[in-house]
């Protein structure tokens, strides 16, 4: 049975779900950040598979942009985490709960 | 530009203009504000007088002006006047002018106060004049917001903040429920227009389904009921008026409160007739709560303003009784009391405001024997109290008697109790107030009080008293304008399409003891035109079993213009 679009999509969904699980379960800020990256990659995978099966390149262009945005985001995010760490000496989610009502 | 737009436009425009006047030109601000309300009052009087021969448009409205605003939703700035709101606009304009004159008591931040006062009066006049559901509602809210600010900032008494929030939250809740009703009406009717005449015409062709009506009418009834302090929802009114500055309570108790009633008559009765008829029984008993329950509560009040607030709530009971009777006499009577009560409430609050200004307190126990010192204000308060308990010669009496006549044929028991409330309880708490405040020995601490001597100070009270006398002695001025339009509303509300004067079916039940054999049918009396001997159908109690009885009234008694009978 040759590989169709839905196979790729299932893989990307599962990957997305993994990333989501990571964000919710893990309590270290950096790991949360990495699972975020995972979710982004899942999206990339879905886009590329669509562009492949619809024979249009737009999907790939979009992935290209997503990668650049992800890069910018990681840069800023890590800078924030560093600043946060310097202030609170901890990157653990449970310690950083001052932003509540 | 129809005259109406000027009437409601002037206060709003001047309110805007006042923003640019610097704060410390107190006299100029006061002058401009009074001038604005004076202009709109004079225009309103001119309109009232010229009402008879003004050009009338298809739907029966005069001084009409329509400016489409949002076609897709069918919203347009549509102002017009017919019998129902011409009296109200006249009363609103005069009370607004009187309130502006009485605003001399505000000593700090006059500028903001006058701006809010003008916005409020513009909003009120607009709400009454507008024939478009959207503007009808929007302008009412426009008038409601200043009330909140005025009571909050310039109010008096230690429960001021509590009263401010209570009155605002309660009224916005009521307005919200009414809004839901209005929107449901707009949607259910499918007429895709907010224009009242078009909507009425549309619904006259294909009336709403019974289910929709049973859903919409309670919303409108209780929404407007809250706005008008119908019995269970009345607790905001006395307290709110008690702690409001006198111009605000004059405008709110006198005029803004009538918005709910006017809404009921203009929108609820004709557009949702079947549901209206089935709810009238409940409304009759609720209004009895207003008259009797609030009357007794008024008896126990220690503060003059709370007493007046309660009495104005009690007067609402009569208006509701008039509406509940759903016949021409009742509705005309209700409309008449709305106008009369406007003047009365404004007058009483103005006077109590004056007394508060001079003595600093409104506790009845501390006041006493003021009539000796405040001669003019004392007599005016005495007259207002007398008008309050329905003394002939004042407009309230005419309205109340018409309502009693109207509702007697429909709810005899309720009318009897309402009569007790109106005549006896009203007289008791009014005379008690007069006895404790005006009569009796003058305590020495009030020896130095200054009476309202200057003409300018006496003008508002004199004006309101004059209006009460004019409509009290010559009620035809108003009733001839109200009757044709009230007839239209009643025919729609009753679901008959037969015009006035023809054979009319109306449900009359009479609490007649079972042993009655029923008097003879129609006997023509010696004047030859009509005899009315109803076949009294026996019913255990008037309220439970409704004997439908046919009353053939082939023509109204021709006893009009000076017929000479010997």
């Amino acid at each position, binding site marked *: 049975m040759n590989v169709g679009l839905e196979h790729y999509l299932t893989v990307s969904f599962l990957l997305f779900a993994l990333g*989501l699980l990571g964000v919710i379960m893990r309590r270290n800020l950096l790991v949360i950040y990495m699972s975020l990256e995972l979710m982004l990659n899942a999206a990339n995978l879905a886009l590329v598979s669509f562009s492949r099966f619809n024979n249009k390149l737009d999907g790939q262009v979009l992935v290209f942009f997503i990668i650049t945005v992800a890069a910018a985001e990681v840069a800023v995010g890590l800078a924030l985490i560093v600043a946060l760490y310097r202030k609170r000496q901890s990157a653990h989610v449970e310690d950083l709960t001052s932003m509540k009502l | 530009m129809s005259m109406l737009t000027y009437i409601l436009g002037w206060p709003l425009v001047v309110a805007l203009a006042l923003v640019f006047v610097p704060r410390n030109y107190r006299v100029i601000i006061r002058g401009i504000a009074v001038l604005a309300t004076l202009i709109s009052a004079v225009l309103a009087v001119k309109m009232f007088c010229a009402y008879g021969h003004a050009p009338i448009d298809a739907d029966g409205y005069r001084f009409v002006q329509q400016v489409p605003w949002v076609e897709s939703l069918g919203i347009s700035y549509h102002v017009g006047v017919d019998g129902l709101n011409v009296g109200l606009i006249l009363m609103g304009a005069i009370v607004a002018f009187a309130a502006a004159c009485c605003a001399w008591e505000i000593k700090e931040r006059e500028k903001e106060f006058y701006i809010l006062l003008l916005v409020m009066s513009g909003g009120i006049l607009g709400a009454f004049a507008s024939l478009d559901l959207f503007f009808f509602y929007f302008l009412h809210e426009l008038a409601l917001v200043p009330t909140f600010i005025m009571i909050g900032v310039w109010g008096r008494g230690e429960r001021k903040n509590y009263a401010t929030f209570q009155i605002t939250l309660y009224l916005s809740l009521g307005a919200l429920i009414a809004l839901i009703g209005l929107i449901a009406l707009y949607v259910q009717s499918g007429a895709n227009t907010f224009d009242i005449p078009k909507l009425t015409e549309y619904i006259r062709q294909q009336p709403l389904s019974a289910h929709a009506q049973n859903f919409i009418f309670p919303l409108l009834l209780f929404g407007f009921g809250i706005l008008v302090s119908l019995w269970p929802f009345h607790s905001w009114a006395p307290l709110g008026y008690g702690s409001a500055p006198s111009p605000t309570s004059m405008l709110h108790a006198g005029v803004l409160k009538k918005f709910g009633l006017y809404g009921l008559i203009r929108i609820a009765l004709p557009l949702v007739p079947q549901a209206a008829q089935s709810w009238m029984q409940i409304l009759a008993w609720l209004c009895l709560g207003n008259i009797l329950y609030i009357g007794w509560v008024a*008896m126990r009040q220690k503060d003059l303003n709370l007493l007046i607030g309660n009495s104005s709530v009690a007067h609402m009971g009569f208006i509701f009784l008039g509406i509940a009777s759903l016949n021409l006499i009742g509705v005309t009577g209700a409309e008449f009391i709305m106008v009369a009560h406007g003047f009365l409430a404004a007058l009483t609050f103005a006077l109590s405001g004056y007394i508060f200004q001079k003595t600093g307190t409104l506790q009845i126990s501390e006041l006493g024997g003021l009539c000796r010192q405040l001669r003019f204000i004392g007599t005016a308060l005495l007259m207002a109290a007398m008008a309050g308990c329905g003394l002939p010669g004042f407009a309230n009496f005419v309205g109340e008697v018409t309502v009693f006549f109207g509702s007697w044929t429909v709810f005899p028991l309720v009318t009897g109790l309402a009569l007790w409330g109106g005549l006896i309880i009203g007289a008791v708490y009014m005379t008690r107030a007069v006895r404790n405040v005006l009569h009796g020995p003058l305590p020495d601490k009030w020896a130095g009080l200054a009476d309202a001597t200057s003409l300018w100070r006496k003008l508002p009270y004199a004006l309101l008293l004059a209006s009460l006398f004019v409509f009290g002695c010559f009620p035809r001025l108003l009733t001839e304008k109200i009757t044709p339009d009230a*007839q239209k509303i009643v025919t729609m509300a009753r679901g008959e399409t037969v015009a006035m004067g023809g054979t009319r079916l109306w449900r009359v039940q009479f609490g007649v003891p079972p042993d009655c054999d029923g008097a*003879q049918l129609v006997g023509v009396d010696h004047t030859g035109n009509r005899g009315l001997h109803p076949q009294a159908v026996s019913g255990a109690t008037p309220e439970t079993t409704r004997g439908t009885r046919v009353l053939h009234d082939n023509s109204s008694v021709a006893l009009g213009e000076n017929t000479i009978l010997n």
Partner: protein
Amino acid sequence: MKYELLPWLILFLPLVAAGGITLFTLRYRTVSALLSIGAIVTGFVLSLIFINANGWQPAVGEISKNWLSIGTLHIDFGLKLDALSMMMLLVVTGVGGAIHIYSFGYMHEDSGFSRFFAFMSLFTFSMLGIVLANNFIEMFIFWELVGVSSYLLIGFWFEKPSAGDAAKKAFIVNRLGDFGFLLGILMIWGILGSLNFSVLQGQLSQNSLALGAMSTIAGLLVFCGAVGKSAQFPLHVWLPDAMEGPTPVSALIHAATMVAAGVYMLCRIFFVLNPEALHVIAYIGGFTALLAALIAVQQDDIKRIIAYSTLSQLGYMVMAVGLSGQTAAMFHLTTHAFFKALLFLSAGSVIIALHHEQNIWKMGSLKQKMPVTFWTFLVGALALSGMWPFSGFFSKDSILAQALEQGHQLPWLGYPLFITGVLVAGLTTFYIFRLFFVVFFGKEKSEIASHAHESPAVMTLPLVVLAIFSFIGGYLGIAGVYHGLFAGETEKSAGLAAALFEPFINSPLAAALGLCVVAIGFFAAFSLYAKADKDPLPVILGPLATAMKNKFYFDELYEATVIRLHDFIAAVMDWIDRWLVEGLCIGLVRGGTDLTGRALRLVQTGNLQTYAFLFVLGVAVVMYFVLGK
């Protein structure tokens, strides 16, 4: 019909005077007094002109303009001109005029002089309105206006707390009567559809069962209005307290005109009352007469004695109407107006002479000091008690005759009332001469009594005029006028001598019995009080005397029952309003919102992951609805 405008003028002149005084001439005392007196005197003259121009029964019975007409409700503002209203017009303007002139002297040094005359004119206007009204609502309007003007006049000296309370009490009791009256009007309108007297009279004469089973109730409710206004049994408590007002007020309102309005109204709407209602009315009238006479015997205040005597005479008239003796009732009303006004005014001049002293046990031997007042008071007393040549005899005798004549058809109604009538006549003579002897004979019982002097001419002149009328009123043919109206046949003009002895001819028993009872009363009063300087009766009667002095504790009874009940209900309602309505409705709402607010706050934990979780949950729900199902 000549001078059609005259009745309107007579009616509106006092109103113009009242308006003029309040608006313009409040500061100029004499001008406003003249304005008010002028209004009522011209009214008297104009009505005289109108009557001799058009006779007692003018050709045009009614002039009416439409005041208010909505659908089937037609209220006119009209004048009904027949013998009844013409006679009452004369009584009101005549007696009123005399009293106005008298009060010019009486109120001279009072600060609220012009305000007094404004109220008096307002009262005259409303009284004339009642007399001339041609439909129920118009009569009700003037009914209430009369109630208010009596409220204003009783509470004229409002600084006095007792005056303020008395005014409030009078107003509320009157309103109780008006409540019944309006309810009756509503009932009649509801069934018969019209308010105009002549139309209603036509319908009811057509078929007397038109009102069906409600006729008795309707009749009694309308009678309720008369009970309130003429202070009959249940609602009589306000009249004695109304003596707080100045004496001319008591004379005008609480003797001559206002209280008589009730009897006038009963005669005007006689067609509405069916036999059962009339019996009840007769009994209430009789009972009030007896009750008031008993109380009057033990009163000490000169004005209260005369007030109670008014009450009992009114009971007489209402009893007469109950016995369907309208002519007798109106005849007695007319004569009573004259001699009761006379008694009040002479009492007033005594009070003025003794610097506002009203207790009879502080007066004495004023006979030499105030001769004119003495003689006029004597004439009034004799007329009141019904001594032969005086007007009181003729009118009271006609009532007793009516009772006797009714006795023949309905023995259980006529005879007991005849007996009470005779008994009351005796008591009346007793208490009026008790007052007469104590005030004018015996020795001065206080030093102010010693240097009392006669009142000025402006006060004694009206007294003399009224005395003349009280003397000759009996045989002026007043009865004939009423007879013409009610019985329908024209009045026969009997000679003076025949008129003098006519009562003895038509019912000798009533006349003879009446006279001898009067004699008994006179001698009893003479023997007990001629030389007494303190009241001997309590010793003789004991507890009954104290009961009579305290007005049989009616005030306390009402205080305990009606007023306390109302206050209790008001207290309960106020409590409910404060706790249940306000507490429950608003408390509930406030509590509810507060609670939800507090619950929602818990969600904000600050933990990043709970937010993420909620976020994802939201996405799941949305996806469920979008993709799912």
